[in-house]
């Protein structure tokens, strides 16, 4: 069965969406990624959409859901590489993706994940100690 690969990159998971996804494929990715977060005890997920030429409300919802599911499972998600034309269209469509962290590219996304995870850990330390 067709599926989007999920790669382990050090402490993080990286998903690069390179195909024009039909809806079931997007839902399958959501499912696969949730299991991968749990199995690897991952704290950070990067979703690279730099080659996606379109994000509609269905894909937007899938990304927002992954971010929410990940948070419940203890992982932060950062969406990286959105093309300007896609961003302009998404906002006009009415989807500003609140609650979804974004970064310009994979490098900046990784830096953001590190800050988020370090910040969460130091907060946890200060509350327990």
């Amino acid at each position, binding site marked *: 069965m067709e599926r989007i690969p999920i790669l382990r990159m050090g402490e993080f998971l990286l998903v690069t969406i390179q195909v*024009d*996804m*039909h*809806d*079931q494929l997007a839902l399958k990715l959501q499912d696969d990624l949730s299991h991968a977060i749990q199995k690897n005890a991952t704290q950070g997920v990067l979703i690279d959409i730099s080659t996606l*030429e*379109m*994000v*509609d*409300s*269905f894909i*937007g*919802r899938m990304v927002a859901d992954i971010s929410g599911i990940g948070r419940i499972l203890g992982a932060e998600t950062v969406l990286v590489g959105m*093309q*300007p*034309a*896609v961003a*302009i*269209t*998404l906002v*006009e*469509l*009415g*989807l500003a993706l609140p609650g979804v962290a974004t970064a310009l590219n994979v490098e900046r996304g990784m830096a953001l994940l590190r800050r988020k995870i370090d910040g969460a850990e130091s907060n946890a330390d200060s509350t327990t100690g």
Partner: protein
Amino acid sequence: MPTAPQGESPLRSEHDIVLARQTVRKLTQELGFSLVDQTKMVTAASELARNAYTHGRGGTLCWQIVERDARRGLKLRFADEGPGIPNMDLALTDGWTSGNGLGMGLSGARRLVNDFEIDSKVGAGTRVTITRWK
């Protein structure tokens, strides 16, 4: 130049939604739309194709290259024979959904195009016609 001024394709499966997006991308490229305008039209088409497939139990996409006052544009008509929309004002409201979506499909698609017409009869189906001019 486009190979033909008009055509149609079915909206009977999820794969057809992907094909509809690709057809609209190709047509807007052939018409010389800017990248942002291409993306808006493709995204609107994706929302309406999905509506026809999921809410309208499948349908058809008809496309046509149109001309007005020396401007060219792309006109798309999404027709289904589904249950129709009983309350149009509600259906066009941001955030209202009959299913489990975000409710941005119809209202969002309307914002992405220049002309938007919707005609729906309960029990007979829904037709949405959109045009974007270059």
